[in-house]
């Protein structure tokens, strides 16, 4: 139970710090800020947990216990950062579902649903994100694929082909 408590306290503490910072001012580079908060919390938490304790000894007593807590902390950090993109911006599928759920009976038709979500414009948002993330650049009206974008495309094309997955979007 001791190791579980330490692991939850470290991750929970990092999340609280993240929440407090976001309530004051949302950072410009949010993913980088999340990484920095969680990665800083790990060594600080480990130092505190191995040098302080209650009763019989420190909170964390062996290297394997430290590794166990670190494994949880890194897994939680990565999972949260992945989930954060969906927290930050509702996906088109979630928007569609919520619109249907909130509609009065008998529910919208396909045409009505598509009209209602048209203003969300996910394609323009994704294109803006790719420009900002350095995956593509735009000269006049032409989009050019940059090396970073080519690498992303290659990784996921290879994975999808290997797994026999359908084309995305």
């Amino acid at each position, binding site marked *: 139970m001791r190791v579980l408590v330490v692991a939850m306290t470290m991750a929970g503490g990092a999340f609280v710090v993240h929440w407090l910072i976001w309530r004051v001012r949302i950072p410009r580079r949010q993913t980088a800020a999340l990484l920095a908060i969680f990665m800083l919390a790990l060594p600080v938490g480990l130092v505190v947990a191995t040098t302080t304790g209650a009763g019989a000894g420190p909170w964390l007593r062996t290297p394997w216990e430290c*590794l166990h807590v670190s494994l949880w902390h890194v*897994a939680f950090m990565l999972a949260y950062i992945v989930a954060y993109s969906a927290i930050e911006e509702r996906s088109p599928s*979630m928007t569609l579902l919520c619109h249907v759920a909130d509609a009065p009976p008998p529910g919208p038709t*396909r045409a009505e649903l598509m009209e209602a979500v048209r203003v969300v414009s996910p394609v323009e948002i994704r294109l803006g994100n*790719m420009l900002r993330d350095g995956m593509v650049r735009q000269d006049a009206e032409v*989009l050019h694929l940059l090396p970073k*974008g080519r690498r992303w495309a290659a990784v996921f094309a290879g994975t999808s082909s290997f797994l026999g997955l359908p084309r*995305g*979007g």
Partner: protein
Amino acid sequence: MTQDAWYPLIVLAPVAGLASYGGAQVLIARLGRHRNPYRSLTLGFLAGLAVLLACTWYALPGGRYSALDAGGLLILNVLIYLALAFGYFNFVNLGIASLRIRMLAELVAAGGQLPAARLLALYNSEAVAAVRIERLLAGGHLTDIDGHLRIGRRRFLLVARIFDGLRALILGSRTATGRQPPPRGPREQVTP
């Protein structure tokens, strides 16, 4: 064996679970190429969970942990596995559902450059919405009753509501309905 000798197996159990998830998912996906891709992800997840529980269950009695400690270690391992599995699921799901990945693939297929208007026409909001609606219908999350759409299985809707709640908690109530908050400067977004 002492308690310390069993602990490494407990620590590595979630990693073994993740490796089993990936291996099982790849095998099932390749054997059933034309089936629903989420089937391989679900079955792989269950295989990995079984490996995790088996490894943890095997190591706990050997270490002679108290019931409280054993319970705590089991819960921690399950949580680690869920976090790792969530990451793996999203990695595979990007290839299936990501609009950004699809747009990048179009650029690659066009030789690295494409008029912006053509890309936007290929993936206009109507086309994206139509694909997503059909995918939600195929997955049972929406049902079509006499031409009107209603919610089917509530799992995905529940996830959407949870994310709405987290958005309100972290980013403030202005974004609770999915609208972008007022920009405070250039923002980095990692949106699939």
